[in-house]
C-alpha cells in the first residue's frame, strides 16, 4: 500500500502486479530489483552474484546497500508477522481488499491460517 501511496504522490500509476514477478513497471530498475530479490532465495549462489552485479551496475554503491538492507530486513519482518499471527490493520484490509484479491494475496497460506 505504501507503494501505491508513493505513486499517488508522484502521479505515477504503478502496475502492482509486478510485485508478483512481472518484469514491466514504471518504477526505475524494477526488473533488476525484482531479480535481486528472487536471486536472494535461489539455491545457486551464482544467481545472486549475477543479480547483484546487474543491479550494482545500474544503481551504484549506495543504492545497492539500500537494496541489501531491505531484502535482509524484510526476510525478517515477514517472520515476525507470520510467527505472531499479526493481522493487517482493519483499515488496510478495507482499502486494499480488491487489490489483494486481484494479486492473489488472499490465497497465500498465511491469509487462511488460524
Amino acid at each position, binding site marked *: 500500500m505504501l507503494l501505491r501511496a508513493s505513486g499517488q504522490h508522484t502521479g505515477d500509476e504503478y502496475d502492482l502486479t509486478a510485485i508478483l*514477478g512481472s518484469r514491466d513497471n514504471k518504477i526505475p530498475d524494477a526488473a533488476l530489483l525484482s531479480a535481486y530479490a528472487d536471486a536472494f532465495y535461489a539455491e545457486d549462489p551464482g544467481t545472486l552474484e549475477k543479480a547483484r552485479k546487474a543491479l550494482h551496475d545500474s544503481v551504484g554503491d549506495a*543504492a545497492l546497500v539500500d537494496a541489501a538492507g531491505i531484502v535482509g*530486513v524484510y526476510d525478517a519482518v515477514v*517472520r515476525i508477522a507470520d510467527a*505472531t499471527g499479526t493481522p493487517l490493520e482493519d483499515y488496510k484490509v478495507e482499502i486494499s481488499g480488491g487489490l489483494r484479491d486481484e494479486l492473489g494475496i488472499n490465497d497465500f497460506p498465511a491469509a487462511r491460517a488460524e
Partner: protein
Amino acid sequence: MNAIVDYSAAPVPVRGDLVLAHQDAWKRLASAGTWWDGETRVAIAAETRAARDCALCRARKDALSPTAVQGAHEHASELPAALIEVVHRIATDQSRLTRAFFETALNEGISDCEYVETVGVIATVLAVDGFTKALGLPPFALPAPVAGEPARQRPTGAKIDHAWVPRVAPEDVTETEANLYEGLGGANIHRALSLVPDEVIGFFHSIDAAQYLPDAALRDFGTEYRDLSHAQIEFLAARVSAINQCVY
C-alpha cells in the same frame, strides 16, 4: 568468520548507521534478554542458521503439509527439542504457521514471552545475515554469550486482541516501557513483539530503521532518504513479502 561486526572489507561502502545497528544487534544477541540468557539467545541464533541446512525442514517445506513429515531436526545446540522446532519452523516455513503451532509451543513449556523473544532473536539474526548475504559477504561469527540474568519483566498492559500473542497497545504503555513506540506509529507489525519491549526497540528502533526506513520517513514522499526512491524501496519490500507469501 569474524565475530566482530566490521564492514571494512565490504565490496561497497556501508552506511555508518547500518554498521552501528548491526554492532548493537550482535551486542544484544550476546547479552541476557528479558526472558532468555545470553547463552540461550546465541543458541537460538545458531539454530536459526542451522535450519537453512536442516534436512527435515527441507522435506517439510517441500511437503503439501509440514505436519506430514516426521523426524528430528539437524540441530546446532542443546536447546530443548520444542524450542528447536519453533526456531526451525519460523526460520524456514513461516507462511504456513498457524495458531495451533503457537499453542503447541505453549503446551510444550515455552511461555508466550519466551516465544516472542525467540521471534525477536530469529528476526535479528536473519536481518543481519540477510544483509551480508545480499551484499555477497560471509556471515559474521555469532558472538560469545555474555553472563547475566534475564530481567523477566512482563508489560502489565499486554493483552490478547487480534494476534496469537498478547500485545501492548500504544494506549496501554506504562512508564516501565515508556519508549516502546518512540518514533514508531504503533502499527500491528510494531506491536507484534511488544510483549517483550526490548525486542521492539532492538529490531524496529534500530535494525529496521537502518535497513528499511525510520517510521517517520515512510510516508514522507516529498523527501528521499535513501539512494533508492520510496517507490523502489516499497517495490522491493513488497516483492520480498510476496516471495515469502506474507499477507501483512
